[in-house]
């Protein structure tokens, strides 16, 4: 009898021992981790994303938009023409990055910065969203005889993003654009809009993206709401973004407030962004 009991004790203890040892020290302890890769690139389609260069990384981007597709095969859906913008951005820390850019459209230079105010986290001290402040100064240089003051446009944005799961991320963008020079007296210097953007991953390395900006307040008659849809392909240190958009320029005052294309006569623009990172 005793022998049988000893055997049972032995069996029962080994049975318990086969339970995960880790459970023995389980006290609900959890680490906290920041949420990574809400978007693949620093742009969603046209608009800025909450992503910024990582510390000590230099990010070079080419933003290329072809001409209008409205002429069809005559100029190969606008591919005979192009406006191009280059920029270089650098990550100073996890929270601060800055950059400079130059666009062939209106020969516009720009300097810009992104500051991460809060970041989405999982685990013990989880936090639901990432909040980034973006600001940019654009300097138009196409007209030689012009005061410096009149050349300048300012862009301010709060970028609020949430990565819902590995595929879906959405972003909200309250935006203020201040133009020092406006075309007519009835045009407002300050333009407010709310941008919405998002991405849906198709595979591990590709995603479909969209963005658009809803105007708040009055706009001129020629105003069209700017939008873009795109497809991201990531390959190691590169990100390629192919897109269709109704905006010709790839800087904020253009794609938010100066989009001109319409769907009706296929007056839209094909384009692509290429981003490449360098480790410094």
């Amino acid at each position, binding site marked *: 009898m005793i022998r049988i009991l000893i055997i049972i*004790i032995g069996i029962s203890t080994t049975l318990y021992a086969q339970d995960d040892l*880790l459970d*023995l*020290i389980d006290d609900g302890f959890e680490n906290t981790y920041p949420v990574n890769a809400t978007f693949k690139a620093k742009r969603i389609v046209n608009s800025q994303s909450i992503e910024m260069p990582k510390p000590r*990384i230099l990010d070079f981007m080419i933003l290329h938009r072809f001409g209008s597709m409205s002429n069809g095969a005559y100029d190969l859906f606008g591919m005979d023409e192009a406006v191009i913008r280059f920029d270089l951005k650098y990550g100073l820390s996890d929270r601060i990055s800055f950059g400079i850019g130059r666009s062939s459209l209106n020969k516009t230079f720009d300097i810009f910065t992104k500051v991460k105010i809060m970041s989405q986290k*999982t685990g013990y001290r989880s936090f639901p969203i990432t909040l980034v402040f973006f600001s940019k100064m654009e300097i138009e240089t196409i007209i030689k005889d012009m005061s410096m003051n009149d050349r300048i446009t300012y862009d301010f944005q709060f970028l609020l993003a949430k990565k819902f799961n*590995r595929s879906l991320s959405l972003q909200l963008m309250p935006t203020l654009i201040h133009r020092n020079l406006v075309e007519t007296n009835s045009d407002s210097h300050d333009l407010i809009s709310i941008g919405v953007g998002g991405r849906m991953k198709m595979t*591990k*390395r590709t995603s479909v993206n969209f963005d658009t900006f809803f105007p708040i307040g009055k706009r001129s008659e020629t105003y069209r709401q700017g939008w873009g849809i795109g497809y991201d392909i990531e390959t190691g240190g590169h990100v390629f973004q192919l897109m269709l958009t109704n905006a010709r320029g790839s800087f904020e005052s253009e794609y938010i407030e100066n989009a001109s294309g319409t769907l009706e006569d296929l007056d839209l623009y094909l384009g692509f962004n290429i981003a490449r990172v360098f480790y410094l």
Partner: protein
Amino acid sequence: MNRTFFLLIFIAPLIAKDIFYTRSGQVSFFSSTPIEDIKALNEQTTCVLNMETGDVSFRIPILGFNFKNGLMQEHFNENYLESDIYPDAGFKGVINNWDQVTLNEEPQLISIEGVMTIHGVSKQIKETGKISFKNEKVNGTAMFRIIVADYDIQIPKIVRENIAKVVDVNVRLSLKKK
């Protein structure tokens, strides 16, 4: 008499066993190709050792691997280890001939055997390590290699030259009594 034994049956497993553990074990890995070196350190590894049986269990949070290069860290989590689906790597095994091991200050060679789980793929492995006992703590170290393809971690053609097929892993632990 019988009653005592029945009590023992139920109580014995509940009495705290001789358990040593850590939540801040170090696991690092290193891979090298002519194009770039990849290394990362994790200092959030949980390890539990049952001093009676020699059973060990590891939990290694994938998000806990820190890279010097933040973009590599992002790709490691997003594209290779897929930490949103497989948040932890783990090992569950036993130190061979545990009853013949007497711990002292001198590190002694042991062999350890069990199931390693990375990226949701489990694989039987057998590696060697060193174990010692000093200042009330059990210290363990191990160095071994992992073949990336064994764990269904796919490396696209375009970066195949940058990422080594074999990764050196280094484990350093200091376990305290529970």
